[in-house]
């Protein structure tokens, strides 16, 4: 039976739980960061991403309802994030659509669920399931540590390519700039909540399980983006040699 880990041991375990399957190393992310994608591929990415993260306020709302009153700081964190997502500034999905429009897409195309891959719908369903059915600590581990804390590492390699190679303006690519920094903080707060409230060995193990599952889900989804939209144009992904060998997906 697993033993209770100290906060520092648990943090390392959480970080290691998704170290091998980070979405930044999946084929679609690598093709993006190295400037191989065409603008039409970005429209497909934005469309699928819209259906994956578009209901984020819903996921957070379900988690909020599952969080007990004694965990007031965790409840406030979730509520704050709902507000940020939807109301505090430009709505985040509008920034995503702004990018899609800069790539030649339309709002109607992006918002049409029929244009999303089954994998995107699977991500959406998994997030509804975890946020609605799991203990709030476990869903925080899954959605915030496992998924959201990866965002800066993905967008920090993709954003410079968008500006420098593809010539997007900072305004057009604001979705990425915003999330590079806000999700650093979001991820850190997620770690703090999980470290604080996963207070039994069973909860710690369940958090680790869901962090792994979240990373696997996002990796498979990102790999599917390449296979569905890019491989027919560019062929199978081959990693260039100068980079450290990555998990090929």
């Amino acid at each position, binding site marked *: 039976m697993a033993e209770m880990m100290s906060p520092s041991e648990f943090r390392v375990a959480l970080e290691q739980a998704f170290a091998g399957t980070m979405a930044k190393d999946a084929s679609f992310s690598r093709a993006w960061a190295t400037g191989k994608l065409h603008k039409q591929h970005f429209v497909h990415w934005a469309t699928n991403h819209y259906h994956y993260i578009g209901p984020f306020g819903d996921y957070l709302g379900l988690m909020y309802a599952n969080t007990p009153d004694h965990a007031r700081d965790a409840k406030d964190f979730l509520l704050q994030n709902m507000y940020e997502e939807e109301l505090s500034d430009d709505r985040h999905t509008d920034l995503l659509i702004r990018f899609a429009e800069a790539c030649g897409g339309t709002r109607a195309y992006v918002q049409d669920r029929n244009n999303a891959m089954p994998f995107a719908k699977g991500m959406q369903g998994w997030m509804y399931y975890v946020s609605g059915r799991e203990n709030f600590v476990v869903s925080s581990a899954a959605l915030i540590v496992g998924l959201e804390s990866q965002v800066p590492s993905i967008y920090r390699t993709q954003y410079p390519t968008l500006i420098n190679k593809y010539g997007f303006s900072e305004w057009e690519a604001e979705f990425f700039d915003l999330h590079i920094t806000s999700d*650093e903080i979001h991820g850190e707060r997620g770690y703090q909540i999980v470290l604080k409230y996963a207070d039994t060995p069973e909860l710690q193990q369940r958090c680790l399980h869901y962090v792994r599952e979240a990373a696997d889900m996002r990796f498979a989804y990102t790999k599917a983006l390449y296979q569905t939209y890019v491989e027919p144009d560019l062929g199978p992904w081959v990693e260039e040699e100068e980079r450290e060998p990555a998990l090929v997906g």
Partner: protein
Amino acid sequence: MPRIYFKTVDRYVEFAEGEEVNVLRMAIREDCDVPWQCASGNCGTDRLVVEEGVENLDPPRRRERARLGDLLDDGYRLACQTYTRGDVTFSWDPDQVGLDDEGGDGSGGGSRAGWAGTG
């Protein structure tokens, strides 16, 4: 190991060689009491004076330039928007509030303490 010196609270935070780290994230992780609100470059609550090590910081992007304006020339950076890859020293006024809240009644219309974005 490179380190961030949060001079106002006399705390050093180390990070791994070769890494680039977000300044506000490190401050929150290590409880260094940097004031902040939005984490998205909107409020300016987390503006820090760069006392040393400016050469180790990444250049400011659009949101930070728009929020700080001339304060950038005065040596300020926003902790939430800034990454460092080497030694750097920051100081700040522990009582500072958001740039839109200064001189007002504090209700300001900006974001509230600790509100961060999702994506």
